[in-house]
Each structure stands twice: as C-alpha cells, then as structure tokens.
C-alpha cells in the first residue's frame, strides 16, 4: 500500500483506490481541480467489467444532475451506464477514448478519465460522496461477497 493509494487484494485481483479522490457508489471517481471535477471509472469497476470495447461520453455543454447518465461503456462482458455523481455541466471530454477505450483499463485514474464537469452544487453534494476509505470499505464488502458466493 503506497502513501497515495489504498490497495485491496481479493483472490488474484488487486484493486487500487487513490486517497485523494471522492467516489460515487457506482464507482465513478471525482478529482477536484479548482471549481472543476474530473470524472472517471474506478479501478474496481473497470476490472470487473472487462476489456473496453467502446466508451461514450455525453458532449460538452450537457447539464447533469446526480444520477444522470454522463457516459456509458461497453465491454466484452457488460454494457454499463455511468451516473453523474454531481450537479454540473460537462466542459471537456476525453476524445482519446474514441480511438482507444482501452485507456480506461490501462490507466483508469489517469489517461482513462472520462469528462470534466463544472461543479454547480459541490458543497452540498460532497457530503453524499464516499472518500477513499469509505469506497475501499464498500468494494471490499462487495468483492468478498462475490468470493463467498463461489
């Protein structure tokens, strides 16, 4: 476990959770950048979802409320609609994903980011989000539950 990252190892998988991010329960991470928030897909979700075939992000200018679809992914296993964890407006999207959606698998907290959102109601909404420790606990419970089912 590094200073910047929590790591959860379950079975043969290791899931990483950066300490400086917030998370929605669906596994969308939020990195604050001034009054903006960069959004992406958590390592746990991308590993569980499998190899990315397509990633589509709503266009710049899209207004979002918490729970609104802001992106969707299609993998070799599943199709997943990703809900926005915040209120805001999309001001940038990761165009690289059009040609290389595998960036989400390769670098989920870096080059695989999905969108940048101008935050509209952050102070009220931040309390409803999970910090790294809480998200770690959530995925630990989920992953261990999956193992017990086997």
């Amino acid at each position: 476990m590094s200073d910047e990252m929590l790591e959860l190892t379950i079975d043969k998988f290791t899931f990483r959770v950066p300490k400086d991010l917030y998370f929605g329960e669906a596994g969308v991470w939020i990195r604050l950048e001034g009054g903006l928030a960069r959004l992406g897909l958590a390592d746990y979700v991308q590993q569980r979802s499998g190899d990315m075939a397509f990633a589509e992000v709503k266009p710049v200018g899209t207004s979002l409320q918490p729970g609104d679809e802001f992106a969707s992914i299609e993998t070799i296993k599943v199709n997943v609609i990703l809900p926005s964890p915040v209120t805001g407006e999309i001001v940038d999207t990761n165009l690289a994903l059009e040609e290389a959606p595998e960036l989400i698998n390769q670098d989920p907290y870096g080059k695989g980011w999905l969108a940048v959102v101008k935050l509209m109601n952050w102070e009220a909404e931040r309390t409803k989000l999970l910090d790294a420790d809480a998200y770690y606990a959530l995925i630990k419970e989920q992953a261990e539950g999956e193992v017990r089912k086997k």
Partner: protein
Amino acid sequence: MSKVVIVPCSGIGKSYGSVAREGAYVVTEDLRPDTTQLVPLSLLVLGDEQAREDVSGAQAITIDGCKLACASKMVAESGSTVAHNLAVLDVYRRHRDLKPAGIAELNEGGQKLAQALAEEVVTLVDALISASPLSTLRLRSGQDLGEGTGGRGRAEQDGGQNA
C-alpha cells in the same frame, strides 16, 4: 513457402474466444484451405511435437480473444514468427453492429463477426503469400497448392480440445 499458420485463442467461456476459433475455421476450411493451416493452441501448450513443427519456421497469424493474448505469446514461445496478430475486440470495434453472444453456439452477430474477422485474416494471408520470394515459383509448380484439409472435421482439427 510453407502454409501460413493460423493459431486462434482456445479459451473457453467467452464469446470472443469462440469468434476467434470460428474465424480461423472459416479461413482454413473455406476461404484459404490451400495456403493456410490451423494449429490448435492447446496442442502448442501441451508441447505436441507435430504442432511445434508446424509452427516452426512458418509465418503465423494469431487471433486472440482477450488481452491475455495467449495465442500470440504461445506461438512466440514456440519459436515461430508472429507475422500478424488480430484481437477479436479490435475487429468488433470496426463492426459494432455485430455484437457476439453465445459460446458453444454463437449468435448471428457472432457468426458475422467471425466472417469479418476471417476476411481480415485472408487479406493478411494473401499479403504474406505474395510477399514470399518463393511464392511465384511454387504457385507455378502447384506443389504447395491443392492440398486442402482432407475433409477433417473441425473438432478433429482442433485436437478435440477446446480449453
């Protein structure tokens, strides 16, 4: 030149592996039976002497079903040249309307995707053949053509294995 060796994924449990194998069958049995040869990955993994001999010194096209890329890795470890590698996922990205489903029996999308994959493989096979310095001579002599697959069934060609 010797036949181009086609080595597909032999994983089980995922549609993309099935597409890889089905595409390889289409190439080696239907589209280019005279210039290609299917070598089962499972036999390479087992160290089967005939399979290793078949890939040794041959130009191989590998078809991987997932990012583990077992076919490519195993062919390389067997001492063959991976002339080209195709990933089923990349082919699917070029044919998004052909979503594969099913494993033992692919859905229509999967079957069409296998056909599209096979056509991409054939393009590569033809390029390898035409680039071979011996291709003109041997095509004239016909010595390397017309051998076909001898009517062997797909399960038999796959060594009866699928894992």
